[in-house]
């Protein structure tokens, strides 16, 4: 028997793309943790004598229009972006998964719980019919511009995804014999949902988590780009891109390009991690991968035998 961790490690070796994803995520998390000790300059203090300087050894990514060091700001930004995206994703997934499990469990038959489930689904329809970005800005504007409201906006926008995902999972699982058996054995609904349904339905939700953290970062930066999210001079990728907007048009590319690249690479990393979780949590695809690795090992062993024979 191979251990789960060993399998995971060898799966990463077999799919180097996924290893890249994990490396990017690790790097971004490290930057968020240690930026204050690594950054060569203060991320919020301007040096008016050194504005719009080209990338150089003193300023790796150059300086922006007011003279702040772009490298220091770009590596400090994940502190805000990552925190907002992770909190928003966690909030939406916890609420969405719980609601989705209930709605899925009580979707057939009669009674007030079933009507309530129907109402929740129609509310989700309405929520999803909104233009996402306009809805998010309106929410931030209504609740007052702050980090907490951006978190709430991300949670609101993503909740229907988890709701639907969990509901469709539960719909297929609730027809299983073991759920029926639990009912016959007199297990309460709450215990059945908690002990038997959620653990068997959770895998696709986990894959969605990582992908959604990436989307959360994109939404946070988009809100900040139009001035409805995190305010300058707090280091945040979207607001940095927005500050450099005019400079790009006149030829100074670095104030916008570097934060945008950091942002894109980060989201790319989280998508890769999500894709790897999706593959590893799918038993069929995991088996294909295991077979592929086995064949590879067998070929390597055969090659060694041939070599030894010669």
């Amino acid at each position, binding site marked *: 028997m191979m251990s789960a961790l060993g399998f995971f490690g060898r799966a990463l070796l077999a799919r180097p793309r996924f290893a890249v994803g994990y490396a990017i995520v690790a790097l971004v998390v490290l930057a968020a943790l240690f930026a204050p000790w690594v950054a060569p300059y203060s991320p919020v203090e301007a040096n008016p004598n050194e504005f719009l300087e080209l990338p150089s050894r003193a300023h790796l990514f150059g300086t922006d229009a007011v003279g702040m060091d772009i490298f220091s700001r770009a590596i400090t930004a994940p502190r805000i972006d990552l925190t907002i995206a992770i909190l928003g994703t966690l909030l939406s997934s916890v609420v969405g998964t719980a609601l989705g499990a209930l709605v899925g469990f009580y979707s057939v038959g009669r009674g007030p719980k079933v009507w309530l489930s129907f109402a929740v689904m129609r509310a989700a329809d309405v929520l999803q019919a909104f233009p996402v970005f306009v809805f998010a800005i309106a929410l931030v504007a209504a609740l007052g511009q702050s980090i907490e409201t951006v978190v709430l906006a991300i949670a609101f926008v993503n909740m229907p995804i988890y709701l639907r995902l969990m509901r469709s999972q539960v719909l297929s699982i609730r027809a299983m014999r073991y759920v029926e058996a639990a009912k016959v054995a007199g297990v309460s609904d709450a215990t059945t949902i908690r002990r038997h349904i959620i653990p068997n339905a959770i895998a696709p939700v986990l894959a969605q988590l990582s992908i959604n953290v990436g989307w959360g970062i994109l939404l946070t*930066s988009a809100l900040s780009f139009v001035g409805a999210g995190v305010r300058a001079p707090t280091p945040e990728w979207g607001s940095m891109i927005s500050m450099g907007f005019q400079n790009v048009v006149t030829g100074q590319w670095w104030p916008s390009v570097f934060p945008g690249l950091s942002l894109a690479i980060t989201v790319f990393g989280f998508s890769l991690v999500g894709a790897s979780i999706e593959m590893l949590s799918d038993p069929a695809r995991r088996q294909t991968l295991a077979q592929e690795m086995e064949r590879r090992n067998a070929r390597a062993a055969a090659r060694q035998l041939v070599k030894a024979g010669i």
Partner: protein
Amino acid sequence: MRVARYLLQRLAFVLPQLVGIVLVSFLLVKSIPGDPAVLMLGPTATPDAIAGLRSQMGLDQPLYWQFLLYLDHLAHGDLGTSWQTTRPVLEDLIQRFPATLELVTYSLILAILVGMALGIASALNPKGWVGRLADVYGLSAGALPDFWFALVLIFVFYTLAHWAPAPLGRLDISVLAPQPVTGFMTIDTLLAGDFEAFRSAVAHLVLPVLTLGLINAGPIMKMTQSSMEKMLTSDASRYEELCGIPQRLVTRHALRNALPSIVTIISVLYGYLIGGAVLVEIVFSWGGAGQYAVQGVLNSDIYPVLGFVLFSAIFSLLVYIIVDLVYVLVDPRISH
């Protein structure tokens, strides 16, 4: 007959949903702080003047009454007045919505071309370099912030190469806008026979369309790839291959069967892009409907926001209904 019954069924679901959307957005934008009466009259207004305007706008009424009033106005085709442009929202939207629609439509066409071509090619050869390229393209297209990608394109093609015009609207400032007929700049200029204006309109479309098209090709590609792969490995396709039918024909038949799911994702994307193009509109000063709504939110101008949400919701619903209708007419399996 069948179609009529289907439409009636759909409308029965759609109308309550529309009312729900209007209700939620009404409550949302009403809770945005900032008194429109104060903003309209400016800082020098007397309290009496503000109170007068408030009662004239119905702002002194209870919230549920204001909502009913709004619904009543809606039923008469009145979407309220924007205090920023001081024009009826309906007029503003009729002017701006086609701008967004033109941008989004061309972007979607580009996204379909790129997405379906890459998707089909990678489904035919998943292990080859096209398949790998498609995988990486799908992941990175989803990771790029569109507003940043637009900026990079502007830098390369406007600032450096001078190939593209300045990102300031839909036409050069020196070019006279044609008489609006369809609202699509490319069509109106041709109708007016003004080829210089047509060239200018196309030139202004290139960069925003590239931005939105290349980024949104990702989901179309993924859907094409997965449903084509499923169809190509199906028993029907294998049987055709066994019978010695040429690969081109097998592929074409598989595509025909994969089309419904591809069309579905395209229709969802069309509706999404109406609101999703906002940031690109802002970067290119496009003057579209999304930009109008965002300005509304940022300046406590609520009627443009409500009008935009309503317009885009109705547009999405129309697209879905048309797509469903096409299915009903084309696919014999669904009609029963």
